[in-house]
């Protein structure tokens, strides 16, 4: 099973320029009180690629990317990011690593005691200490423009709609220019037009900042727009991985259910 997986890994490196993995996960296991969520997940994210992770609700997609930034501690297996073993890092080393990773939460996770502007400033001021006041202002205006909400600066999160929150949350993630992006369902709950905009934005982020991304999504339009490679998570393991075309033309019922 595992050797087969690595074989496919080596064959597929579609748009990726070089074959360096930035994230390498092997035999990852994680369970919560007797409930095995991830049983044996091995996965590589190559430099500059967009990897789409498909999977049913509750299959452990969010758990997987939370393990990568060590918001959850795995029960077994190894995770390395930029050739560093995430599990072995000290607190300050982990913080340094986390500064390079952008994490878009499924729920948005906007700080609801702060305005939109403060939400964006909060990580920006702490992670990018090199920026001047003027740079910060420009940067915030720029990302808000990018997500299509230039006038939202002084709103509170409670005044925003669900889709707007999602977009602000995305803005907060990309404002610090991370090298790796982990998107947890970036387009869920948005109208088709906004979804397309977000998909384009994800594409822009990839080309402009040369980021490598893991995109968790159910939205096939988003997958079509961004995927360089797709993996399907099923029963706590990687069930199938391949290019968009192989997934689209697959006759496997597990895969077909996503590509209706």
């Amino acid at each position: 099973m595992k050797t087969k997986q690595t074989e496919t890994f080596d064959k597929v490196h579609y748009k990726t320029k070089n074959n360096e993995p930035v994230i390498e996960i092997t035999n990852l296991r994680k369970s919560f009180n007797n409930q095995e969520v991830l049983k044996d997940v091995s996965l590589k994210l190559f430099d500059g690629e967009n990897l789409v992770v498909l999977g049913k609700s509750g299959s452990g997609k969010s758990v997987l990317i939370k393990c990568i930034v060590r918001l959850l501690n795995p029960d077994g297996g190894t995770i390395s990011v930029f050739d560093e073993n995430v599990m072995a890092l000290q607190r300050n080393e982990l913080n340094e690593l986390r500064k390079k990773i952008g994490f878009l939460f499924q729920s948005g996770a906007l700080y609801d005691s702060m305005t939109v502007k403060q939400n964006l400033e909060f990580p920006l001021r702490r992670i990018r200490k090199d920026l001047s006041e003027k740079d910060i202002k420009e940067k915030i205006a720029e990302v808000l423009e990018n997500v299509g909400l230039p006038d939202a600066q002084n709103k509170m999160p409670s005044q925003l709609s669900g889709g707007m929150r999602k977009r602000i949350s995305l803005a907060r993630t990309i404002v610090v220019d991370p090298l790796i992006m982990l998107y947890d369902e970036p387009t869920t709950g948005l109208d088709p037009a906004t979804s397309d905009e977000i998909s384009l934005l994800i594409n822009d982020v990839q080309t402009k900042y040369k980021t490598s991304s893991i995109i968790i999504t159910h939205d096939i339009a988003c997958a079509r727009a961004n995927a360089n490679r797709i993996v399907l998570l099923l029963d706590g393991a990687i069930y199938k991985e391949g290019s968009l075309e192989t997934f689209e033309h697959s006759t496997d019922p597990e895969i077909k259910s996503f590509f209706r």
Partner: protein
Amino acid sequence: MRKFTSVIKVKGFAVHHSRRLSETTLEKTQIASIFFAEVARVFLFITVLVRESFSRDFELREFFRQCFQIGYKTLPLVSVTGAIMGLVLTIQSRPVLVDFGAVSWLPGMVSVSLIKEMGPVITALICAGKIGSGMGAELGSMKVTEQIEAMEVSSINPMRFLVVTRVAAATLMIPLLILYADALGILGSWAGANIKGSVSFVLFFSQAFSPVDFIDFLPAVLKSFFFGAVIGLVGCYKGYNAGRGTESVGVAANSAVVMASLLVIIIDLIAVQITDMLLL
């Protein structure tokens, strides 16, 4: 034959009871282990809190914001209760003192009981309700909506940013609120004394403070710092360790109030015992 059945009966009885015993033992062990896990978690929380409190980057702005929040939110409540406390205490004690012909002791008696006991404890209980539950609910909802995790992935230490600042603010502000409540209590008492009979403010004031030494103040002020710390600590602990799902926010807020109020009373008991031992 009869002998035999009784043996079986006894055996069945014994088996049944030993099974029940083992079941209860297992159950109790589980309860105990949950309890001890909780105790361990509390200690871990306090250890991390202390370590983070003495780290270099203290979040000063957030600290001041919290101080303002605590003061601003509770000031009206504390004012009203403080004044009424003094007023009621005066009105209630007056007839007794009149019987003994000791009305001139009234201000002193009221001020001593206000400063030493009523002021700190009642204000602390009110703060436990207002501030403790507020912190429990706020941090609890931040936990449930992944805001605390979001801080962590932005390499912002939520313990330092959220918890240290709140506990420090509560430790500083609640004693101030208590002193303020004491002062308003004495004002209320003066008002109460003026309902029947009249006494000038200056006279009342000098009478109120004649039996009070600095040494009487000290234990009360010291214990109010502990009240503040414990209210902040319990509120933050309950919120920070809230479970998943929205109902945990309510649970966190509720148990924060219950626990903080209980601890205030217990600390008061201990403080009284200690001062009693030291001063006599």
